[in-house]
């Protein structure tokens, strides 16, 4: 999880916030999904809220996972198989519990590390305009633009961090694989070459057999 800014206001601001929409929040979790496993998460959403689900596979196998998002009635809103990364935005058409699942059931022995970020609702404004007589002062609008810029910094940082983790995981896999395969190849090379010579020698060693008609 990264930063969360409540963007609060005075007492009237809170009241209007409650009346307008549910407070916005984001849940992000990085978890390990074992092979042949499926993990589901549930979230209660109010109708009309704009939500975004974003996920990325960080380590494991081919770095892909199945993802499925269902609404309270069971209708599938989003379904993708073997995706490495995706982002899906939707508006909740009804109240209720929305369910999204990540499945690694197609994999037999690799477990995956999956990151997802589920954002519910829009962030409330820093300086809510309901109870103001005047427009925002310069200071306040500077705060607002810094806030927006920081939000996009958080976004970029998260994406960069995930991509770097994925790249590093691939590099470490590659390194291990190169080491094992090279050692294996060297051993096979030695064994086969030495074995060939001894095998060949053994063809000519049977003195006990009578036929010694050797082509000259």
């Amino acid at each position: 999880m990264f930063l969360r800014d409540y963007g609060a206001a005075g007492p009237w601001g809170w009241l209007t916030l409650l009346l307008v929409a549910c407070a916005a929040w984001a849940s992000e979790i990085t978890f390990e999904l074992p092979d042949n496993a499926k993990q589901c998460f549930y979230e209660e959403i109010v109708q009309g809220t704009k939500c975004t689900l974003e996920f990325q596979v960080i380590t494991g196998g081919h770095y892909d996972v199945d993802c499925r998002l269902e609404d309270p009635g069971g209708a599938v809103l989003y379904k993708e198989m073997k995706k490495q990364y995706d982002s899906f935005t939707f508006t909740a058409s009804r109240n209720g519990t929305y369910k999204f699942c990540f499945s690694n059931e197609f994999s037999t022995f690799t477990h995956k590390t999956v990151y997802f970020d589920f954002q519910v609702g829009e962030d409330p404004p820093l300086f809510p305009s309901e109870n103001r007589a005047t427009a925002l002062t310069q200071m306040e609008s500077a705060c607002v633009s810094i806030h927006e810029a920081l939000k996009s910094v958080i976004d970029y940082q998260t994406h960069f961090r995930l991509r770097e983790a994925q790249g590093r995981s691939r590099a470490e896999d590659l390194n291990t694989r190169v080491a094992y395969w090279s050692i294996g190849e060297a051993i096979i090379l030695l064994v086969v070459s030495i074995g060939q010579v001894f095998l060949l020698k053994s063809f000519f060693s049977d003195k006990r057999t009578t036929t010694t008609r050797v082509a000259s």
Partner: protein
Amino acid sequence: LALYFHIGEREEKCIIEDIPSDILVVGNYKVQRWDIHKHDFLEAAPGLGMFVTVTSPSGEVLLSKLYGPQGTFSFTSYLSGEHIICFQSNSTRFAVIAGSKLRIHLDIRVGEHFLDESAIQAKDKVNEVNVRLEHLIEQIHHVTKEQDYEREREEKFRKTSEETNSNILWWAIVQTLILISVGIWQIKSLRDFFISKKLV
């Protein structure tokens, strides 16, 4: 506490947080148990507790406590790296009981900076903006910490890639040398053998 998921009664579920050092992580959770008779999750299961274990990247356990059915835990990271937060209920019932599962509501915040609401609600306009600016400055410091940690990780990544590169080169050279030397040995050995058998 909106997001929830289900686990078995004795199952341990872990989540991973890759964070820089010196960051405060606060977690809120609530656990409910499935009631077979009512076919629903009980609101507050008495006696049900949750073991929360936090492991640092070096394997050292930072936090290992038993909390009630609802609780808040927090820890500060000393090292940068992957911290693993594990949840396991203290239920002694065997998982053989069919349909028994737990619902865990979870909310974890990293690097949370607490806005002092009372200071903001003061009528002084300048003060409010002051407080907001201080909050923004703290957030920017957090961004800097994350960026420093990112630099460390990228360096590790680069080292791994370069090591792979030189490994490939070195092993290729070694294998070629083995190939050549074993080839020479083969020919020599066979020649000596045939000479000794008077075939050549």
